[in-house]
């Protein structure tokens, strides 16, 4: 269901190109927004449960159908969402009100745009760019503008610290992320996500699926460097220093409440979805089945893609509830002194590998 397909379909009905374009964007945008909201709701619930189980708790248990005797707290996130929407939306007196109100939407736009290029299956993709990988990485950095705006406009020292840390962190970690993603691009020779996924069909030695992660040792490492950078880009533990709860209270989100805060929250989980989606598409075979040749058609593609996505998001949660948090300078150390050299060597290695075996 790409936008292009919709526009083409409208063209068969009649000649209204501008309207067709707008309609196509809206029709494909609304499901995307629903995916975002649904993702946040499910992810929040899963995160609660995962964290609770890891800590020997049971997590939310009430609030289900039938109120207190409900089942497993299934309606907890719905209750939370309602609470956030009806909560008072405070704007600090001394804040820069225009920027303060703008910031959540800019972050939201960044996440939303990124999601547009995620290939959920062979046909389910809003916009199938020929530079999809590049596009996702590029729009991923829009969010940082919103974060800095939020931090600055709040007129709060904690927010400012959070925003500055966040800016430094995201800009730095885009480099190893970009360098890691070059490895699959080199191997597939394309920036188009669908083509990248198609490249990964078939098997290696008849057993393993021909995913880029299994293709050679360098791409194996590249996956991990990319994933670590992705975790850092989404500001999650152990890289959650911009909102480090025990240090900066809530970082750049300190002054936000109610709906605006909910938008931040939504974007954070959407960002997780986008970076995991990119990792899945570039390294884990996208919508390809893990058992080569089986269950590979139609909606199975969506199933496999979502499954892999879910697993990566779960790993991010697993990280969060296991690890402590790094310090600012150590964060930079990991990026510049560990990840970047490794990714550089990786690019070299893949080039040589391609020369010899490819």
């Amino acid at each position, binding site marked *: 269901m790409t936008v292009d397909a919709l526009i083409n379909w409208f063209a068969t009905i009649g000649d209204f190109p501008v309207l067709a374009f707008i309609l196509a964007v809206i029709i494909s945008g609304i499901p995307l927004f629903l995916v975002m909201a649904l993702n946040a709701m499910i992810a929040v619930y899963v995160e609660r449960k995962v964290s609770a*189980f*890891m800590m020997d*708790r049971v997590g939310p248990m009430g609030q289900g159908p039938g109120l207190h*005797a409900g089942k497993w707290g299934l309606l907890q996130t719905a209750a939370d969402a309602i609470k956030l929407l009806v909560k008072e939306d405070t704007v600090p007196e001394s804040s820069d009100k225009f920027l303060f109100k703008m910031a959540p939407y800019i972050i939201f736009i960044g996440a939303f745009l990124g999601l547009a290029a995620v290939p959920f299956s062979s046909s389910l993709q809003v916009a199938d760019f020929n530079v999809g990988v590049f596009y996702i990485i590029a729009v991923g950095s829009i969010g940082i503008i919103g974060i800095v705006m939020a931090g600055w406009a709040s007129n709060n020292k904690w927010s400012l610290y959070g925003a500055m840390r966040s800016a430094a962190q995201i800009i730095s970690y885009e480099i190893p992320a970009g360098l890691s993603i070059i490895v699959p691009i080199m191997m597939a020779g394309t920036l188009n996500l669908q083509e990248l996924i198609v490249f990964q069909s078939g098997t290696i030695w008849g057993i393993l699926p021909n995913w880029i992660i299994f293709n050679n040792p360098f791409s194996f490492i590249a996956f991990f460097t990319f994933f670590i950078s992705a975790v850092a880009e989404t500001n999650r533990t152990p890289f959650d220093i911009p909102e480090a709860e025990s240090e900066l209270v809530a970082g750049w989100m300190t002054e936000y409440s109610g709906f605006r805060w909910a938008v931040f929250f939504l974007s954070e989980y959407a960002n997780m979805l986008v970076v995991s989606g990119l990792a899945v598409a570039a390294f884990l075979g996208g919508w390809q089945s893990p058992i080569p040749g089986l269950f590979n058609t139609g909606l199975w593609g969506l199933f496999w893609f979502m499954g892999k996505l879910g697993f990566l998001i779960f790993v991010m949660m697993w990280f969060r509830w296991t690890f402590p948090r790094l310090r600012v300078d150590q964060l930079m150390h990991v990026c510049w002194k*560990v990840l970047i050299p490794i990714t550089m060597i990786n690019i070299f290695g893949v080039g040589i590998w391609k020369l010899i075996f490819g």
Partner: protein
Amino acid sequence: MSRYFQNIYDTLSTLLTGMSITWRHMVNIKRDNVTLQYPEERWPRPERNIGFEHQDYNVIRSRLHVDIDDCIGCLKCERACPVDCIKIDTIKAPTRGEDIPNVKHTGETSNGTKKAMVVSRFTIDMSECCYCNLCTYPCPEECIFMVGGPNSSKHPIDYEFSEFERKDLIYQFAKKLSTEQKDGLQKPLPEAKA
């Protein structure tokens, strides 16, 4: 250089060890869970099972309760309280050890002590109580106690006595006497002297 790689190796191995621990706890949640689903499950939680029986507790620091029929008005608990949350007023009884039905005063305690005082006021402000249990020791009749635990036979456990108003936490154990009743108690005194 080797230190650099050693560092990376250490990081990965220790982080993976940590992740394996949290994983083990996650999959064994049925066994490891320690949460008490409070309104449905109540304390003391039987599943925790570390060998505690309700009546084996030495005491449970919960609400204070007074068996006013046993109280002889000796004021010992009032003096023992470090935060002054117990307030007692007494009037000398006309005759020692005699029931006075109109103020619901019993003359003898369950231990057989003959009362010399009518307790006209016995209030405990549980919002100020610090649950130190100091008031229960000096009591000669053991009529002030913390409910539940070994005292469950006297009063069932009650640790959920929240109220909407602060003044509702002031527990009044003695029957409030009207002025006439007080006068009626005090009058016999001069007569007896005379």
